[in-house]
């Protein structure tokens, strides 16, 4: 059954339906008085408009072009640069199609990304702590022992610091057998 939508009705009015569809349309219009009335009104309007267009043709005056020519601005000669620029602008901004819009967005995002990489804040490397907490404790104990040793007056029974002790002046020196007491 033919649907009474605007597209089908316009095709019917324009005589673009085949015989079968045309018959279906007329059958459908017989069942719907409102739509039939709209179709009659539309046909009336088309006849009136076609008559107006044919009975009152619009003519153009003979001096249309001379008058227009006087008003046209002087065109500057296109140099090679402007021609190349227009070609490339045509490639970059071809049309308002979805693909063109997507291309423009992608180009803008790429440019912004490059700018942010180039001019973005430099990464600061925070040097990790070279000395752990336990190492810090060991160093402070060693320094404290050294300070105590330096401040304590020597006694008879005091023994020299072992060679390996960092506080010993013989650090890194081979132990001697000469009984030298620092």
């Amino acid at each position, binding site marked *: 059954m033919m649907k009474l939508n*605007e*597209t089908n*009705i*316009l095709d019917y*009015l324009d005589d673009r339906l085949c015989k079968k569809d045309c018959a279906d349309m007329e059958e459908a219009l017989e069942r719907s008085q409102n739509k039939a009335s*709209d179709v*009659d*009104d*539309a*046909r*009336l*309007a*088309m006849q*009136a*408009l*076609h*008559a*107006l*267009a044919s*009975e*009152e*043709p*619009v003519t*153009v*005056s003979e001096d*249309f*072009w001379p*008058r*227009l*020519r006087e*008003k*046209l*601005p002087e*065109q500057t*000669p*296109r140099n*090679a640069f402007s*021609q*190349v620029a*227009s*070609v490339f602008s*045509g490639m970059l901004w*071809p*049309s308002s*199609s979805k693909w063109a819009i997507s291309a423009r967005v992608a180009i803008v995002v790429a440019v912004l990304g490059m700018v942010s990489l180039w001019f973005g804040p430099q990464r600061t490397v925070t040097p990790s702590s070279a000395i752990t907490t336990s190492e810090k404790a060991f160093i402070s104990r060693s320094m404290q022992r050294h300070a105590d040793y330096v401040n304590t007056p020597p006694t008879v029974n005091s023994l020299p610091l072992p060679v390996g002790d960092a506080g010993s002046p013989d650090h890194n020196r081979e132990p001697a057998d000469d009984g030298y007491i620092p």
Partner: protein
Amino acid sequence: MLTMAYPEVCEPGEEEFNSDAWLVGRALENDIAAFEQLVERYQGKIVGYAARMLNDAEEAEDVAQEVFIKAYRSLSSFRGDSAFSTWIYRIATNLCIDKMRKRKRRPQQAYSLDEPLDKDEDKGSREIPDESGEPNLNIEKEELRQQVRLVMAEMPEKMRTVLVLCDMQGLPYEHIAKILKCPIGTVKSRLFHARADLGRRLRPYMSGAQ
């Protein structure tokens, strides 16, 4: 360079030579004769379109001149994605709609047919020549045409535009959709409702004129 700007026109063959795209390319090379050809090709259509939209034949030529001046200035922005006719009709549509909106803001100046043409010399009133031997039929037809103009002048711009483009300019729906940058379904919907509305208001006048 012409080849690069308009790649579809490599060497103008018989079909491409003198086509709109080829003439646009020539006009961009400062060939004013090419633009003149384009004007001659479309001046009738654009003047007619403006006259139907504005209901004023005198103003129609001025508007058509503005259309071509605007087209000339913007020729470098015409990329050839759509047909030149679509582009020029689009410019004309926008200018006509602007004029109609300005008119609404200004009070209409009415002309009386009984008023003398030149008040100083008092030459007499305007006369409309009757070229037919059937005065009654002429009057009824003139009344009908007057009513058509009146109803169309009161229509919303969008509906009026599709009516003029389709039923008076004879453009196909696809072309109208490209000019107005709307889907074909929208064009058909507006056209259907515009025709039904116009027909409904003309019905009392049609029975007498037929």
